[in-house]
Each structure stands twice: as structure tokens, then as C-alpha cells.
């Protein structure tokens, strides 16, 4: 099975590897997959006050396709609004990396990771707003 140049590049030189402080109010964290299934992705986004994703980091346990998919989405989400980022489809990821059919689930997981990170950020904002409302 021959992998695409793009996939191999992301696997060998993954972008935006790392972690950001989970507790911070401007950070959203998505942790998806399961060790028993052989794939776990942690994707984090740092969101500005006007809803722009300023930074993204990932760590992934999984095959080369899973690592490349998560690396790719960290590049894609940066500079996007959270609503724009939420529209990224697994098919876009699969197409960009030319994933073979047995690896499509890796792109699905990457899409789930973005959505989970956005959801986490939104729920933090909602909690904070509620706190503010109560204070006012």
C-alpha cells in the first residue's frame, strides 16, 4: 500500500505537536477515540475573544494516517472562526491526504476531534457567561 506524499510528509514532519493548558478559558480540548481501538486524538484550539482560532496543537496515538489527519487539521483550523472550523468535513481530509479506504475512519476521527474541541470551548464560554450573568 503506497501512501501519498502529503500523508508521509505530515507523518514525518507533523505540524503543531504539543499541548496547551487545558484549564485556560480560551482553550478548547477534544479527546476522541480509544486506546483499545488503536486510535486516540487530542486536539486543542486557542480561541481569541472574537472567535478566531489563533493556535492549535495535537497529540495522537495511532497509525500514520491518524497522525497525518490530526496534523493536517491543526493547520486547517488556524486562522478560521470556530464556525468555519466546524464545517471541515472528513471527506476533505481524506481527499487531501489521499487516504486509502481502510483509513477513512482516521479522517472521521479528526473531524470528531475538531468538533469536540469546539464544543469544549463553547461550553467553557457558556459556563463563564453564566457566572458573569450571576455576578451582574
Amino acid at each position, binding site marked *: 500500500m503506497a501512501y501519498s506524499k502529503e500523508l508521509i510528509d505530515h507523518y514525518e514532519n507533523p505540524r503543531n505537536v504539543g499541548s496547551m493548558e487545558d484549564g485556560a478559558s480560551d482553550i478548547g480540548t477534544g479527546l476522541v477515540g480509544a486506546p483499545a481501538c488503536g486510535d486516540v486524538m487530542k486536539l486543542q484550539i486557542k480561541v481569541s475573544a472574537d472567535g478566531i482560532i489563533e493556535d492549535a496543537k495535537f497529540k495522537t496515538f495511532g497509525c*500514520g494516517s491518524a497522525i497525518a489527519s490530526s496534523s493536517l487539521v491543526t493547520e486547517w483550523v488556524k486562522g478560521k472562526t470556530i464556525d468555519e472550523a466546524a464545517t471541515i468535513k472528513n471527506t476533505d481530509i481524506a481527499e487531501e491526504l489521499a487516504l486509502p479506504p481502510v483509513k477513512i475512519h482516521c479522517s472521521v476521527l479528526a473531524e470528531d476531534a475538531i468538533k469536540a474541541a469546539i464544543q469544549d470551548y463553547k461550553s467553557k464560554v457558556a459556563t463563564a457567561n453564566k457566572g458573569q450573568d450571576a455576578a451582574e
Partner: protein
Amino acid sequence: MTAKTWTQNNPLYLDYQATTPTDPRVVEAMNPYWTEKFGNPHSRNHHYGWEAEDAVEIARGHVADLIGASTKEIIFTSGATESNNLAIKGVAKFYGDKRNHIITCVTEHKCVLESCRALQQDGFDVTYLHVQENGLIDLDVLQAAMTDKTVLVSIMAVNNEIGVIQPLKEIGQMCRANKTFFHTDAAQAVGKIPLDVDDMNIDLLSISGHKVYGPMGIGALYVRRKPRVRLVPLIHGGGQERAMRSGTLPTPLVVGLGKACELASKEMAAEAERLHGFQDRLFAGLKERIPEIFLNGDLVHRIPGNLNISFAYVEGEGLMMGIKDLAVSSGSACTSASLEPSYVLRALGVEEELAHTSLRLGLGRFTTEEDIDYAVERIAKEVNRLRELSPLWDMAQAGIDIKSIKWAEH
């Protein structure tokens, strides 16, 4: 460091349980039988047939010698899969009227398990023994499973994934005492460890050509003559191979298997000693360079040419992509549709997350000490790189038990 350079298209071969390269001396022995001595070994009327038949019988002798059998007890087949099918189905169908129970083990090769499943469809009872954490069967459990209806026990000599050696002699004694036939799939054992069908009370033994530096497409089945084991053939025809396996014998392949067995008889002891040294060096090197690695299967009751190791927190297929200048295999099954990791590792009680991180490293006749050092270097570098990418490694370093997290199974 090695003078050779290994690349993706010319990787260092460390997958000797998948297949072994044909020994050049084997190829040389086979060569004349393609063109010059091309006769049908079953032709009884001219020189071409006679010389082919002579070559086949010499080869049969070498195969027999390697396992302590006599020449009349060796049946040539297309490989160990056919031998296993013939042994299991052949015995079951011959004796099934009186005895219809078979015992095998959950870590057997698929061709044994599937043969047994097929017999279940035909009404046979099959017991699939579990294995202990070290990969070996529990002899007391085997004893307890045997009844007066047990016609056959089929337990492999050496496991293809984890290299563990089952207690053949003890199993053979139990079977003989119960008047049950003992079949062993010895594809991974022949030429690796000493085997003696009389000493071990083995009644049927399967051999593969390409696992013993012989050619692909040839194998053999040992079928005991005293006391006699009878089989219903799978393939009917001209009655070759004592009517147990019809079809024209492929003389060049038979000669190749014979030569491979002859070489194994002469060189096995020295080769095993050399590979033991390499196995120790490889395992010690990896342990020194990489924390938290786990050997799957017993270390002592194991052939010297195999290590199966879980590199916790790094997924096996992802790891293989990083070490593409090494030809190895993984217990992770992410390429298969099921996403299920190795059934053999699962049977040992290896947890799924660790099963996904395993590599099988197979060493053999053409492995060198430089190869071992190169493999240690490459694997250590890549495991450590991928752990830096692994959220599970982070959690482990932070003291978080990954089992305490509620994962969404997908």
C-alpha cells in the same frame, strides 16, 4: 554501524516467521530438476522418471531424518496449510464413527482453527483450549478435556506470532495413554528446535517448506505407521503418496524441501546458538533504550528467532510506518476491516491497547549482529519520537491511569 544501507525498497528483513528466503544451496540443488532432469517421478518406464523418483526418495529421507521418522511416513503436500487440513479432517473422517471429539487450542494457526470449525459443521465436537499468560497450554486442562471419545489432539509446536514452544513430549504422553492421536503443526518448529516423533509420541506432524529455507508451495505431513494412523484423503486421483495425497509430485520443490531439511539437520544446533545470542542482544538493547516495553509470550520456552514486544503508548502500524527500512509485522490489525488486534495476543490476556502496540521481530539464518544493532537503533529512535506525539504517553507521565478515562469506543 552497518556498512549496508537499508531503505523502504530494500528493507532489513526481520520477518522470518512470515517466510524465510530460500537458501542458495537449496536453489542450487533444485536447479537441474526444472529443465534437465524434468521427468515425472511417477513414470516407471524410462530414465527420466527413474532419476526424478530417486531424487524424490532421497529428499523424503532428509525430511524423515530431521524429525526422527522413517521415509515411508512422509507424505508430500503443497504446504503446512494442506498438511494441517489433511491431518485433522483426514483422521476425523476416518475414525469419526467411533470417536468424534477433537481438542485444539485458541492460538493455533487459522488453518487448524478453520479445519476444526468445518468439522463442527459436520457434527464433530471440538474443544478449544485456552492458553496461559505465557502462551502455553495448561497440561492439567488438556488432561481434563480428554475423554474416551477424543480422537485427535492438535496442538502447534511453535506459535507463529509469539514463538513459544508447547510441551510436546508431555502432550504426546497424555495422548498415547488415552489412545488419542497427537497432531502438531510444526511449521515454525522444524529446523528451529530438535523434534523426534518417537520420543515425543507425535502421530502426525505438519511441515512447511518456506519456513525452513526451502521453496514455497511444498510441505509435508508425517503420518505414523506403528501404531498406524489412517486418513481419508482430501485429494483423490492417481493414488500417489500411499493414496493419501494424489497428484504428480513437483520434483524440484520436493528436492528443495529435502535439501533444506538436510541443511537444517546439520546446522540447526549452531544456528540456534547464534540466534539465541542475537535474541538476547536485541531484547537487551531495546530494554536499555526504551522504557515500558513488554515481551509477549514466554521468554524461556521460545524459539531463538522470535521476539514479540509491545511498545506501550505507540500504535504498531504507526510505528511500522516510521521504521519502513525494517521489514517486520505488527499485532495491530488496523489495516484489516475489523480493527481487531491479534487474536493470539488477546488469548494471552494482553489488553487491547497493548496488543495494538506490538511488533513481531523475526531473526534467522541471514541475520547479522550489525542488523540487530541497526534494528535497536531505528526502533528506539522511532518509538521515542512517536511517544512524544502520543497523548497516552503524556497521560502516563502525568500519572493518569488511561483505564480511568471513559473512552468512546468507535
